[in-house]
């Protein structure tokens, strides 16, 4: 498709048909959690000397400091280097390779540093036979928190959480319907990007009989449930599931000739990148924006890194900030529920479809807006926004706050110019 020239006058109706196809595929996609496996074992093309990261591609020299710290943490946790200094040298020499998570149909929150042995969630869409992967957020690989603190969490995930959850999936017949749980959570006060209290509850209720039936010891099961109840990572676990589900659902809309629908939005703390269905795997970028919201005690907005993470795949699918009004608590980020409703109405203006499965209860159960159209974004001068966490720009800290960031118009303009070069 890339490089192919259409040797006739472009019929704009064909763009509309392509977009309707892209959106229909996104809406009809399903998302099931089917397995948990080390990245190197289950992700095609993943390599022993590779650490992947959130966002569009970026050279090591330009990378945000916090993302560098997270990648170095992942390299050390993986045993690829003994110290941060050695890890950095190996990366600079290309002996440890870095690449975007999205190159591997993989997503991970915030810095998103993923190493080969990390157990990734495997999410399948049986309707279109697509598979996506998620490395769950941990403090040291997502927020660049100090590895001395964070290594315990990574080891817990590898040694306890992943085996227990893998066995739980098996007990549930080999699949857990994530899309259904997300739809339920959206109607119970979660917007599915930064608030998951209800979704976590719905998830745990559904898996608890199977969890108990796995045969793991009482102590191991207690540790897993304690993780869900008390830690950042545990409380955010549904966020990992949601990211994986949204990735696999948006994959179904990729590579549709003439479609102007956005299939990926992702940030690396320096740039915010998008991919467009009719433009293959090309990235179009603009500067990653500031996250505006609240910070935890001891931190200020000046401490925050710019917008970062693969989690904008959630907004790409039409959830998260796209349905902000579903969450009265998160609506405060934008100035309250009425402002959130106004924002969702703006999102209808830049999308081409509506999803009957995901509904916003505070807007009379209105259907979620789906299918961001780069033409509408540019014409109407309205950009999507993303609800997100804040990472400390220096690394060395866990999450420092949360808020909303804007996608840069520059990315959509670049995409539109590329679309015109390709097709007009």
């Amino acid at each position, binding site marked *: 498709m890339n490089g192919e020239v259409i040797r006739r006058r*472009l019929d704009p109706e064909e763009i509309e048909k392509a977009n309707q196809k892209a959106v229909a595929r996104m809406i009809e996609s399903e998302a099931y959690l089917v397995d948990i496996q080390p990245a190197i074992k289950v992700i095609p093309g993943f390599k022993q000397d590779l650490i992947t990261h959130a966002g569009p591609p970026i050279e090591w020299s330009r990378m945000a400091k916090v993302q560098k710290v997270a990648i170095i943490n992942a390299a050390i946790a993986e045993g690829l280097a003994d110290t941060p200094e050695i890890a950095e040298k190996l990366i600079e020499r290309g002996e440890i390779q870095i690449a975007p998570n999205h190159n591997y149909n993989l997503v991970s929150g915030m810095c998103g540093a993923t190493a080969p042995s990390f157990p990734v969630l495997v999410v399948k869409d049986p309707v279109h036979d697509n598979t996506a992967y998620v490395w769950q957020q941990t403090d040291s690989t997502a927020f660049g928190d100090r590895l001395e603190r964070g290594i315990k969490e990574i080891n817990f995930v590898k040694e306890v959480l992943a085996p227990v959850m893998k066995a739980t999936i098996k007990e549930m017949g080999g699949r857990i319907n994530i899309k259904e749980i997300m739809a339920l959570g959206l109607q119970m006060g979660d917007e599915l990007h930064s608030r998951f209290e209800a979704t976590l509850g719905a998830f745990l209720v559904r898996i608890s009989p199977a969890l108990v039936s796995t045969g793991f010891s009482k102590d191991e099961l207690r540790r897993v449930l304690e993780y869900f109840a008390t830690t950042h990572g545990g409380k955010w676990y549904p966020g990992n599931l949601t990211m994986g589900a949204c990735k696999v659902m948006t994959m179904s809309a990729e590579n549709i000739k003439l479609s102007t629908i956005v299939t990926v939005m992702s940030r690396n703390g320096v740039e915010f990148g998008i991919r467009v269905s009719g433009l293959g795997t090309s990235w179009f970028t603009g500067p990653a924006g500031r996250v505006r919201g609240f910070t935890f005690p001891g931190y200020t907005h000046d401490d925050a890194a710019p917008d970062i993470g693969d989690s904008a795949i959630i907004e790409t699918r039409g959830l998260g900030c796209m349905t902000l009004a579903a969450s009265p608590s998160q609506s405060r980020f934008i100035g309250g529920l009425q402002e959130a409703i106004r924002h969702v109405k703006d999102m209808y203006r830049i999308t081409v479809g509506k999803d009957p499965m995901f509904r916003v209860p505070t807007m009379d159960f209105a259907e979620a807006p789906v299918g961001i159209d780069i033409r509408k974004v540019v014409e109407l001068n309205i950009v999507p926004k993303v609800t997100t966490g804040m990472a400390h720009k220096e690394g060395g800290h866990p999450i420092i706050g949360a808020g909303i960031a804007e996608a840069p118009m520059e990315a959509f303009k670049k995409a539109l110019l590329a679309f015109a070069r390709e097709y007009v």
Partner: protein
Amino acid sequence: MAGHKLDILRRKIKAINVGISTFADSLRMQGVDVIEVDWRPPAGGDEELLKILESLKAKDRE
């Protein structure tokens, strides 16, 4: 004749503000009823982008 035209300014004004909100704020501060229309220049006024958008628009599409 001139008097007629000025009469409108002596009546209670209701205004429609298109675009920048700060104009509406000034009117409200003076007790004027204002309806705001959220309008922004298409494509930020970029002519090249406007031409591209026009060529990609289907007939009768809004």
